[in-house]
């Protein structure tokens, strides 16, 4: 009995030793990959940060309104955020590569999914960033055009333009990463439809007089000329 127990224990220990001997080099390889990956990711972070600083990315993101959004959310600057994102994505990639060396069943699939997901994430982030840039540019352009045309609710008009573009960019980004595609599509359609319906009702019911005055001013040259004459000094 005693011999059987000892024998079983010995076998178990031998098996464990074989397993450890089998996995240890892989574990070491994984740790080396993770360590080298950390160094490479850190270098990538430094390079990306320098490139972004050289290309005045922070100014671009400030113009896009992204800096303000991040500041409100108590997050670091866009340059720092992008460089950190690059670091974590790169390092996570290396760690997953290292884990795949261990040969754990089923893990390979997750690793390949992660690498398949990366380009989509990148594209989604690019779409989101340029969406924010476009939203900032067009909302400011709308604000300036409305103010210079003496439109009373210029700020609301500008915010509406920004809101619609941001929602549009978000729905595109979510569609690219494949998260809540339908929800975002429905949300966008609902918001856009509601905005258009709201505007139609506002102009149709609330703004009858305004619309009449606008049309009179627009299509009755005498009125238009008289009003313009009284509004401006000739600049040139």
């Amino acid at each position, binding site marked *: 009995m005693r011999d059987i127990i000892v024998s079983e224990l010995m076998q178990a220990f031998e098996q464990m030793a074989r397993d450890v001997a089998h996995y240890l080099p892989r574990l070491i390889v994984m740790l080396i990959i993770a360590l080298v990956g950390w160094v490479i990711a850190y270098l990538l972070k430094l390079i990306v940060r320098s490139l972004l600083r050289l290309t005045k990315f922070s100014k671009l993101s400030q*113009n896009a309104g992204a800096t303000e959004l991040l500041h409100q959310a108590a997050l670091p600057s866009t340059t720092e955020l992008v460089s950190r994102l690059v670091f974590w994505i790169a390092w996570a990639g290396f760690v997953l590569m290292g884990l795949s060396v261990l040969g754990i069943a089923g893990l390979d699939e997750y690793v390949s999914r992660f690498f398949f997901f990366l380009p989509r994430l990148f594209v989604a982030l690019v779409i989101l960033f340029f969406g924010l840039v476009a939203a900032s540019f067009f909302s400011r*352009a709308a604000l300036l055009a*409305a103010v*210079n045309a*003496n439109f009373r609710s210029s700020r609301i008009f500008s915010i509406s333009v920004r809101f619609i573009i941001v929602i549009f960019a978000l729905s595109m980004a979510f569609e690219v990463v494949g998260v809540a595609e339908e929800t975002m599509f429905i949300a966008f359609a609902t918001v856009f439809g509601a905005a258009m319906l709201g505007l139609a009702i506002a102009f149709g019911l609330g703004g009858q007089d305004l619309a009449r005055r606008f049309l009179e001013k627009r299509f009755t040259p005498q009125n238009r000329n008289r009003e313009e004459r009284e509004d401006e000094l000739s600049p*040139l």
Partner: protein
Amino acid sequence: MLRDVELTEENLLTDEFLRQLINIGEVDIVVGLSTHNNAKTIGPVIAAIQAGILKCFPRERVAIINADGGSQDDTTGLVQNASIDDLRHDHKVYALRTLHSVSVRYARIPDPGKALQTIMAGADLLRAKTCVIVSPYSTSIEPDWLQRLARPSYFDNFDLVSPIYRRQRFEGALVRDLLYPMTRSIYGSRIREPFGSEFAVSGRLITDLLGNGIMNTDWGRMGPEISTTIFALTGKYRVCQSFLGVKQSSSRGHDMVAAVRRTVGALFASLDGNFPVWSAVTGSQSVPTVGTAIELTEEPLRLNRKRLLDMFSNGVAQLEPVLSSILSPSLLSELRRIAALGVDEFEYPAELWTRSVFEFAASYHKSTINRDHIIQALVPLYRGRSLTFFVENRAGSEQDIEIREESLCADFERLKPYLLEIWADRK
């Protein structure tokens, strides 16, 4: 350099235009017209040009070049078919040379820079000694204008002859409140109309303008007229002014943003490349002026002051996020203060206006936001200043107006170091 000029001209001149120019040969004077759907006004302008040629330059070889930006109303036909015979009988004078008239469609849509470049390239090819540019909107043009513009260049070798108009006292507010004082303080020359719709340039200046590709720069494309003036001032060319006559304003009720973009935008854009020149300029010098000074006219003017103030106040309030990217906090708070004033107490002081313009120029240089947005954001502020201009000058004599103008120019010159300081500031 010569090769560049040839290449530039080659791109601008179509085969048909080139054929017409070759048929003309060489001329002494070119009169250039940049048109786009000007059939309503082009008749009297062409008649005045022809009469001016008959009266003042009967012995010279003259050609009219019309650069058209895609007119749909037969403007080019009117220019080409205008007959000089009727004028000969009316004025009892006869030209000793044939008056040539050519039209070219340089583009399907108007492009002022390309139009002026086309005219200048044509004048350069015709080896004209002088090129007079006339606006097709100037229905108040008189035959003598041609002489007043061309003579100083043709006979006295001035490279640029800039106009001085007889204006209604409230006309040209942007010129008087910004373009003149700023051009004067920046480039050091007292050119009253840096953005003249009529002016004359010498063949030498044309060759250099084309050779240096000025019309292909940002400022050249935006405002070719003011860019010509600035190029002449920075290049130490011989510049003079000539009194013309009544300026019939065509800009009233037109797009204010477009007017500001074409003039102030070009002026601001010119500051980047010319920094070494203008940063060294202090004070200003008078410019030789020919002709007899002309008084301001006194036509009555109705102005809705309340509405103008409303446009200013609304602009300052609504554009606060934009203005905070352009102006310093102290200046913005000062603007907020005056925007809250009533129409009777409202005043946009000259010094505050000067600082506003300089801070806009510095922000434009640094591109703190999109440059075109910076120019558009200036429009409400200009409206506020033009209200003060109206209120200050409505009861004053011509001397009072002149004194205020000088005072504003002195502010621009005095505060130029402030511009240099914020120009270099990296924040």
